């Protein structure tokens, strides 16, 4: 998931990759760097999303050199959309593009399966996301600061990981702002706990 705040974005993901019932990687890093201040959150087929992310990172790096300035988050999002839409029949990829640029500050763009592009202040994706739509609708308020965004992201991811069999492991968080990228990991036993019933 990804959340905008005034001055940047907070992104987060679980760390489980499964092949059927087997957890192939329990410490996956689903927050992938596309450029210095642009990251993407990958969901769906790991192979598809890794391939697309590499291609977009290349395209964006080239574009940035041509422009001689840091690329826009919207550009990165459009590059993802172009690939995801053109090859929509072959791909299973749900991607959140989030980052900071000088023109519009923190932005989150959602490129779900099918290849649509939409900017949203908050976006969740992946199999566990269905379980936290209600929680996010109830708890997100516009105008939260970075720490509040981190907390709500960690809480939402914990809730989803508790309910979704395909999500689990650790929570990886990152915040992207003008100052740069700050990454955090919250281990299983440090996750927020909710009343068990």
């Amino acid at each position, binding site marked *: 998931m990804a959340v905008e705040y005034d001055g940047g974005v907070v992104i987060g993901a679980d760390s489980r990759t499964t092949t059927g019932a087997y957890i192939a990687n329990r410490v996956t890093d689903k927050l992938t760097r596309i450029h210095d201040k642009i990251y993407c959150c990958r969901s769906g087929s790991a192979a598809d999303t890794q391939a697309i992310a590499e291609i977009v990172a290349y395209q964006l790096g080239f574009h940035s050199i041509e422009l001689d300035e840091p690329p826009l988050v919207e550009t990165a999002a459009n590059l993802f959309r172009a690939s995801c839409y053109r090859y929509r029949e072959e791909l*299973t990829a749900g991607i959140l593009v989030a980052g900071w640029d000088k023109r519009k500050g923190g932005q989150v763009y959602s490129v779900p399966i099918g290849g649509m592009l939409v900017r949203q202040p908050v976006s969740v994706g992946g199999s566990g996301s269905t379980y936290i739509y209600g929680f996010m609708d109830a708890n997100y308020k516009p105008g939260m600061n970075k720490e509040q965004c981190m907390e709500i992201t960690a809480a939402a991811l914990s809730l989803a990981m508790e309910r979704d069999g395909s999500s689990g492991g650790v929570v990886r968080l990152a915040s992207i702002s003008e100052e740069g990228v700050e990454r955090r990991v919250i281990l299983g036993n440090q996750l927020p706990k909710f009343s068990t019933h």
Partner: protein
Amino acid sequence: MEKHCTDSRVKGVSTGTTILAAVFDGGVVIGSDSRASVGEEYVSSKTINKVIQVHDRIFCCIAGSLADAQAITKAAKFHLSFHSVQMESPPRVMAAASVLRDLCYKNREELQAGFMTAGWDKKNGPQVYVVALGGMLINQLVTIAGSGSTYIYGYIDAKYKPNMTKEECLQFATNALALAMGRDNASGGVAHLVVVTEKGVEHVVVPGDKLPKFHDE
């Protein structure tokens, strides 16, 4: 979107509904939305009440085909009232839940429905039972079912606390139903809530425009 809707959003057995039941200090709240849909495109009724009374202080909700729901609750009501006459006392909530479980288990090949029984009895006070698909019966403090329920698992896990007051629990249930109706096509209309305590039964209907609104509405 057709070919790609094979992810977890398509829940094979749940149909257009959100139902919920929760125990609070002294009673239970049981609630549902009011939409009946055909093929998730046509809303055949905007105001159906899915909370069905099977005895004075025992209610049940069914997430599934309405035809199944009506047939099964009719059978359950009969069994329960007969049982109650034999025992010469009001039936226990567990008895109602068992009746539904037996019906569900015996017909598990044909039925695709989730049942929820909630009520109050003198021996164990307020209780909520869930009969899951295939006939498993479990006692829980709070439970949700139906297609809209997937969107509120996180909210329920975060927000439900045991031993809430009646007002807190009603607000919790209304919020949960509103959130689910906001995200699920197949749930909507008004929120029907029933509060069962030792003293009796209270129906609360929250029309669509009085439902809580959240930040993006």
